[in-house]
């Protein structure tokens, strides 16, 4: 690309008053580029100036020194041009005082100068992206699971014209929805139980010619990448050569002394471990092609371990059952006691295991509250004098199900109280339930014919990978334990997104949901699958960097086959071959750059974001030394996550919070993409400190890319050791956490670090 530069400085929004614009223009001139200023660059006339230059003079590399790149994105988008936004407003003039001309150093002006130079350095090094196009692209959607969620997702996708295949491991469709006596209301007025709606759904499903149903079928493996998955199906229980291979468990990777085995030995062991199975890189020639997957494999009832809930009599008293067992009894007819077949006129529903803890049973959510209400209604429907008691710690009836709760409350034979059930014991042929801390103000005893314990719905991903992805990182979702085994990637921010691009979870595999919620969930996942297809086909990222046309490019000649990129990618986008050379799968990629941060050879980069572009920005920062000033100011590099930290800093500026002008912020896609070479460059250049500012990591992480900030923290620790060997204090490099709404913490984090570095004194390498 033959670049023709144009630098535009806006003087509006207080920039002109706070800065010496001529000084900035001079800096641009020094870089042999021309600067134009405008008092209102985002206005119609201002944009016209840029457009005219593009049209008349062929400008195609535009640097806009104005407001944050998070605003006016549409205004400053010019097709065919690469654009860099220099943030003079939020991060310079709004967050720093106007320079005092009487003083020797104008800190604010120096900050603006540096940012402008960094912007120009970047634009020198980046190229416009060219989208990655798949050779074969398939629009078909695979739905795993033929329960109410899977059926609903299939119908939703089929309605808008997509071909869908449902695979169901049972011999007929319907799942649990077909096994219940009645179900919770799904429509106004939400006051009573309704007959199961699953048969209507199955009938509706049959009316779509573009839906294929495969019962008694399961997924043996899913190979390839979104838009071009090769799927091998099989009968349950079958062993075939395209069954997915499993990675070696950690204990097999080491010898008896705990030392990691060598590469060849590992390959040998791996082959042995997966005998009879083809490697992930050999594709099934008879495999079926799919573009995206909706994972709706659902749940199984929680099975208490032996002796678990002994205080509730479970396992020892026949008339103490789980809610799932009770549903099966109710579905057969009148509610009768399992022990002697007598009518169960008085039933106690226990919603929490008690034991001095107010936690509900595991894997419950709001569903078990609602199911207890539903089953209480069965008792009342079956017996006019029936009594149903519900002992809960939390009565969760979200949304309009509150109306159902209210209507059941009105039933004179349903009794509810918060309380801790202490024991269930036998009393003659009946049972006695004792509970403490009830709303009745004391310890109480209730006579019962049956006791039902509100155990949860275990997502099937707890037992089995289910999706059986032929990925080098393994067939299932990694780090699923922090989601209690649910197929999820973030509890709040990204519904339906799993840790694997192109696989979208819906229904009870994602969270304990009612059938009504599952139907809605199915729509969400179907839409996500469609979004995936309609992005992959254009070579753009799906999520969370939707529309990003770049993708990681590898300079394979220099690859040392260290496998770090393959292992660290949070989304399993890379599959390495036997030698360890990574095989990229661009449509699996979310463009976080974690691979780029991991690569010790620095051979991975994006067209507009790479080792060189960021490194050049670092180099563009002026580091004043004693040659320039008697008491030169500190220079600190802040590598900030553009998803949380960068917005937080902008908002701090918007609120006119002031912080040190000695820090130069450099936005990164994710802290995971930080390559330590940038930190080394900054320090060897004489900068006094470097910090990374990003989102929270750990079990409650807020990282857009799941593992990025966590990986960064590991790498930061490692670089600390290297610093010590250079006689630099480890404190000069740090990582801080911030959430997008914690803008008020920005000044303290920055100023505290500046103070810490100032106390350490200037970098001894300065000036060399």
């Amino acid at each position, binding site marked *: 690309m033959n670049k023709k530069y144009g630098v535009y400085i806006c003087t509006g929004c207080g920039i002109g008053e706070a800065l010496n614009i001529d000084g900035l223009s001079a800096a641009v001139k020094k870089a042999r580029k021309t600067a134009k200023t405008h008092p209102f660059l985002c206005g119609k006339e201002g944009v016209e100036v840029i457009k005219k230059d593009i049209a008349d003079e062929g400008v195609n590399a535009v640097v806009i020194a104005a407001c944050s790149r998070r605003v006016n994105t549409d205004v400053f988008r010019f097709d065919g041009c690469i654009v860099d936004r220099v943030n003079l407003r939020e991060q310079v003039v709004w967050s720093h005082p106007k320079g005092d001309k009487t003083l020797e150093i104008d800190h604010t002006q120096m900050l603006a100068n540096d940012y402008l130079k960094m912007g120009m350095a970047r634009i020198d090094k980046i190229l416009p992206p060219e989208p990655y196009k798949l050779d074969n692209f398939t629009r078909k959607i695979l739905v795993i699971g033929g329960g109410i969620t899977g059926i609903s997702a299939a119908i939703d996708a089929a309605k808008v014209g997509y071909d869908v295949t449902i695979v169901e491991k049972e011999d007929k469709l319907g799942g649990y929805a077909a096994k219940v006596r009645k179900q919770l209301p799904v429509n106004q007025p939400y006051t009573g139980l309704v007959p199961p709606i699953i048969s209507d759904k199955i009938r509706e499903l049959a009316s779509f010619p573009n839906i294929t149903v495969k019962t008694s079928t399961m997924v043996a493996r899913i190979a390839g990448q979104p838009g071009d998955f090769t799927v091998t199906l099989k009968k349950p229980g079958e062993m075939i050569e395209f069954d997915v291979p499993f990675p070696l468990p950690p204990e097999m990777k080491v010898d008896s002394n705990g030392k990691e085995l060598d590469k060849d030995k590992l390959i040998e062991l791996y082959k042995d471990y997966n005998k009879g199975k083809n490697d992930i890189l050999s594709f099934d020639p008879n495999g079926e092609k799919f573009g995206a997957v909706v994972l709706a494999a659902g749940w199984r009832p929680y099975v208490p371990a032996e002796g678990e809930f002994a205080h509730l009599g479970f396992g020892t008293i026949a008339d103490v059952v789980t809610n799932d067992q009770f549903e099966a009894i109710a579905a057969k007819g009148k509610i009768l006691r399992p022990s002697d077949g007598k009518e169960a006129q008085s039933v106690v529903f226990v919603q929490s295991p008690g034991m001095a803890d107010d936690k509900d049973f595991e894997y419950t959510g709001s569903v078990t509250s609602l199911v207890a209400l539903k089953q209480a209604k069965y008792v009342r429907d079956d017996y006019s004098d029936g009594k149903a008691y519900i002992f809960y710690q939390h009565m969760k009836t979200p949304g309009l199900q509150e109306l159902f709760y209210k209507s059941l409350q*009105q039933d*004179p034979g349903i009794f509810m109280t918060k309380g801790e059930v202490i024991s269930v014991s036998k009393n003659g042929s009946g049972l006695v339930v004792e509970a403490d801390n009830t709303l009745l103000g004391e310890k109480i*005893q209730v006579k019962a014919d049956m006791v039902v314990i509100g155990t949860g719905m275990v997502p099937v991903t707890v037992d089995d990978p289910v999706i059986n992805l032929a990925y080098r990182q393994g067939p299932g979702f990694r780090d699923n334990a922090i989601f209690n085994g649910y197929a999820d990637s973030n509890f709040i921010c990204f519904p339906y997104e799993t840790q694997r691009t192109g696989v979208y979870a819906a229904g009870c595999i994602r969270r304990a949901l009612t059938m009504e919620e599952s139907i809605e969930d199915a729509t969400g996942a179907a839409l996500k699958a469609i979004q995936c297809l309609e992005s992959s086909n254009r070579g753009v990222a799906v999520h969370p960097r939707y529309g990003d046309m770049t993708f990681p490019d590898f300079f394979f000649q220099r690859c040392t086959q260290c496998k770090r990129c393959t292992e660290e990618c949070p989304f399993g986008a890379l599959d390495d071959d036997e030698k360890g050379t990574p095989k990229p799968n661009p449509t699996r990629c979310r463009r976080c750059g974690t691979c780029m941060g991991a690569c010790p050879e620095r051979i991975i980069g994006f067209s507009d974001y790479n080792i060189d572009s960021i490194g050049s920005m670092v180099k563009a920062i002026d580091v004043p030394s004693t040659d320039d000033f008697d008491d030169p100011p500190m220079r600190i590099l802040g590598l900030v996550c553009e998803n949380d930290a960068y917005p937080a800093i902008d908002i701090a500026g918007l609120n006119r919070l002031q912080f040190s002008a000695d820090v130069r912020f450099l936005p990164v896609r994710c802290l995971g993409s930080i390559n330590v070479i940038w930190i080394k460059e900054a320090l060897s250049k004489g900068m006094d400190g470097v910090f990374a500012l990003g989102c929270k990591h750990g079990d409650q992480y807020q990282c857009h890319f799941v593992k990025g900030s966590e990986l960064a923290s590991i790498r930061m620790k490692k670089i600390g050791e290297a610093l010590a060997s250079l006689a630099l204090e480890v404190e000069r490099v740090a990582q801080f956490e911030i959430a997008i709404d914690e803008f008020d913490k920005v000044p303290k984090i920055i100023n505290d670090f500046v103070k810490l570095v100032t106390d350490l004194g200037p970098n001894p390498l300065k000036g060399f």
Partner: protein
Amino acid sequence: MSEAFKVEPDITFIKDICALGGGDLKKCFQCATCSVVCPISPDTRPFPRKEMIAASWGLKDKLIGNADIWLCHNCGDCSTKCPRGARPADVLSAIRAAAIEEYAVPKSVAKAVNDPNKLPILLSIPVVLFIVIGLLTGLLNFRPAGDVIVHSNFFSSWLVDIIMVPLAIWSTAIFAIALKRFLADIHANAILEGKTDKKKIDPVEFVKALIRIIPTILKHEKFNECTENRERATAHMMVLFGFIGLFIVTSIFFVVMYVFQIHGPYSQLNPVKWLANISGLALIIGSALLIKQRLSQKDSVSSYKDWTLLVLAFGLGVTGMLTQMTRLAEMACLSYTLYFIHLIFVFYLFAFLPFSKLAHLVYRTVAMTYAEYSNRK
């Protein structure tokens, strides 16, 4: 470890409370807003939150014999503020009606008094009694002689007392039986719920407590604490004082007639007559105001028991006053008829007092006395 309370929900009781005007009781979700907003609820074991769950669990024993339901003066603050529309005030009111029904014997009478369908039968009892006894004894004269209207010429004072005196004794007896059980129950309940430090009820101390509480009742002090009740307090006080005044007048009349053999009607200048007229007016105006308030009240339930009491008080006052006025206006026929009706009201008042809402006069007094006695805080 404390002994666990054995819960035996009584579904019939729940249905009864619903029928008596507490139909929303099951809507309660135990947030305790009611107990917080109640201006007269005590700080420890406050009502009506605990009564609400006891009611929705059908725990009859915890409610009927609970003095707290009588400490409530039914202002309705709780119903207004209840986020779920469970109307605790109406629920307590219904529980009180159930308690009256429970303690009064015979039960069948109590059932009949609270059943609108039985009203014609209840009203026909005095009519039949008056006519049958009157005709048998000859004390009822449908053609009273003389130019001056003297009601006893038509309906002999003897006849009135033959019927009314035993009736008063019957009422008192029923109350005595009921109160014995009632006191025992509320004491047992207070001990169980830890609302008292007293082991036994000491009669002397109890009477002392009664004397201490009477000014509170007369001045409507508790009643006035209820914010929603301010307006109603005056009207209620008028009705109460009207009844008290008329009770005094009747007693004086009774003594004067039997001891001094002086018969009515008294002169309008007689101070007793003044008291009678003032009390009668207070009763009429007070009850009329209460009726007006109930009619304009949209946020609380008015049930049959409420209306019977109000109509009874108003009817008593109006028929009494009109009887006197028509006598002075020398409208003989009308006056005698009104007198007959007035006596029916009086009969109803005496006969069904222990079974009707009016019994609150006795129960609430006893409950407030007990609270005073037992140091309920």
